């Protein structure tokens, strides 16, 4: 179970040795704020019956998605899970495409063939997940295998939740990646719950990262609500992979602040636990950090970023909702090549 903080104010510790310029510091804020606000819009659209299908939120987990994706470089491969929308935004996905996708419109990247984050482009190094959790782990071991075969100085990075670690594919994929020593990073986002199942019913150890030893690969734990810590741990993981050390397993401790999906009120989560993690909100904490370090950003600048985000999202919603639903004639397209 995720531990509640006992201190009054959760503060961002800067990892030793982390180098980050002003622009990057602000970009991290931008993407987390965009992640947060985009999901608020999606939530609102869901209530208006504009979002088609289920809606899954990453409230409280934005630092994990943004910090990790920000550490990747050109040529790296990335696949989100359902709560890594922030990572897709960092990788350059336009919010208009996201909203179009969630609303099942023609403008969505899959043109209505699949929902939410199930999209990608090979030429942009983004792979679409499927709903079968952890299936990406063996797939990414294969992508990383190709990088090794062709001596590419790149990594293949994907995510699983604490729940997905119980699956066949997680185990087989990690073991294969480790024995083949391929440059794959798997981030286990331990957010306390898999739907209604708390982590102590999912695995029998307190810190999942101990499993890395069982695969014979490097593992490290990180505070998933500290965007700088996440950025730092992935940069270092990336360096290891590129040096040929084999895959890396990261456990990010965080918390799922909403239900499993929009329809789930998560009554099974103790209110006190949720309240404790609200105090560790990653976006608030980072804003406080930036405010305290005015040399990086003034409150005025942050407010301007917030306002810009609102503008971007207003435009994105308008454009996306103006896009038609896909024509039935497209039903049979692309079953085969």
């Amino acid at each position, binding site marked *: 179970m995720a531990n509640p903080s006992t201190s009054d104010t959760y503060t961002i510790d800067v990892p030793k040795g982390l180098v980050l310029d002003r622009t990057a510091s602000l970009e991290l804020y931008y993407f987390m704020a965009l992640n947060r606000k985009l999901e608020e819009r999606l939530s609102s659209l869901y209530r208006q019956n504009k979002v088609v299908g289920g809606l899954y939120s990453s409230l409280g987990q934005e630092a994990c998605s943004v910090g990790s994706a920000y550490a990747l470089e050109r040529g790296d491969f990335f696949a989100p899970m359902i709560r890594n929308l922030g990572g897709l935004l960092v990788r350059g996905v336009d919010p208009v495409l996201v909203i179009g996708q969630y609303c099942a419109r023609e403008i969505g990247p899959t043109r209505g063939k699949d929902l939410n984050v199930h999209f990608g482009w090979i030429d942009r190094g983004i792979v679409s997940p499927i709903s079968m959790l952890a*299936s990406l782990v*063996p797939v990414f*071991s*294969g992508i990383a295998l190709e990088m*090794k075969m062709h001596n590419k100085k790149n990594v293949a990075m994907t995510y699983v939740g604490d729940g997905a670690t119980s699956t*066949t594919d997680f185990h*087989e*994929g990690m073991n294969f990646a480790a024995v083949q020593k391929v440059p794959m990073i798997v981030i286990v986002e331990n957010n306390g719950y898999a739907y209604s199942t708390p982590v102590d019913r999912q695995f029998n150890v307190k810190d999942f990262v101990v499993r890395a030893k069982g695969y014979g690969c490097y593992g490290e734990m990180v505070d998933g609500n500290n965007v700088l810590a996440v950025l730092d741990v992935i940069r270092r993981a990336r360096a290891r992979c590129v040096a040929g050390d084999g895959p890396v397993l990261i456990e990010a401790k965080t918390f799922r602040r909403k239900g499993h999906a929009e329809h789930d009120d998560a009554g099974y989560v103790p209110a006190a636990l949720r309240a404790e993690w609200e105090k560790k909100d990653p976006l608030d904490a980072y804003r406080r950090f930036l405010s305290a370090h005015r040399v990086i950003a003034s409150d005025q600048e942050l407010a301007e970023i917030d306002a810009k985000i609102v503008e971007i999202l207003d435009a994105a919603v308008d454009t996306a909702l103006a896009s038609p639903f896909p024509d039935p004639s497209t039903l049979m397209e*692309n079953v085969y090549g």
Partner: protein
Amino acid sequence: MAVTTYIDAIREGIWEEMEKDERVFILGEDVGIYGGAFKVTKGMLDHFGPMRVIDTPIAESAIVGAAIGAALVGMRPVAEMQFIDFISCAFDQIVNFAAKCRYRWGAGVPIVVRGPCGGGVHGGPFHSQNPEAYFFNVPGLKIVCPSTAYDAKGLIKAAIRDPDPVLYFEHKYLYRRIKEDLPAEDFVVPIGKAALRREGDDLSIITYGAMVYKALEAAEELAKSGIEVDVLDLRTILPLDEEAILTTAKKTSKVIVLHEATKTGGPGGEVVARIAEKAFEYLDGPIVRIAPPDTPVPYSPPLEDAFLPQTHDIVAAARKLAAY
């Protein structure tokens, strides 16, 4: 031209594709140092090296999953299932990942998943299965079942070159029993095209895999009593060569559908349905299916012999249908 066994034809096909296309590589259990449980990949590790012939742990989901990942980034992996019976361990990756990527997000997955299928070798329930029916109902996949050495080579090349996931089921009983002269030059057998193995006007037997030989034996027997049989070898199960199926049905008006997968839910039902839908007026008798009974593949010889369709079963059914 060189006389080549069915198994050597598969090996040659893979070997030649690996020579000409450096994207092609193999992964599976015991495929490297051992050359494969049946020696399909014999010699390949020494020639192509360990980065292109990869020995894996016992992990079919990882084998197929890794193949999918590698294919997404431009490689052409050939994943071996030591016995095709173990393909069930990779079911999820095949059905939910490989089959659906292109449709959902436009990414092709050009993998081949191949392995030895079929019985008649005292292999018991887990070394004798014919799993085509599990995947038949999954759009996005292709399934091929070669019966001759020529087709084995031509279809493995076609499968490797295909932009979509192809399940290649090679029948283990045929490995060293079937051989023929193969051309030296490069050739491909198109996926989705059946082949007429014998011609006759009286009755059709539509079949594939090792059953082709039983059908031909039966046809030989029937010819002695003046019953001439069209034997259509489907070669590809998915997509079916509907044109060839309807052509033979319309020609003879009496059809037997024969396969080694068990009867209920086997691919034969689909063949029958299409003929009934599109060639009904041409039929002069009920369409007959010959397939093993609905049981796991048994091990002891009298049970396995009772399980597998035998030539005399086919002859008897054909005589009865011819007289209808």
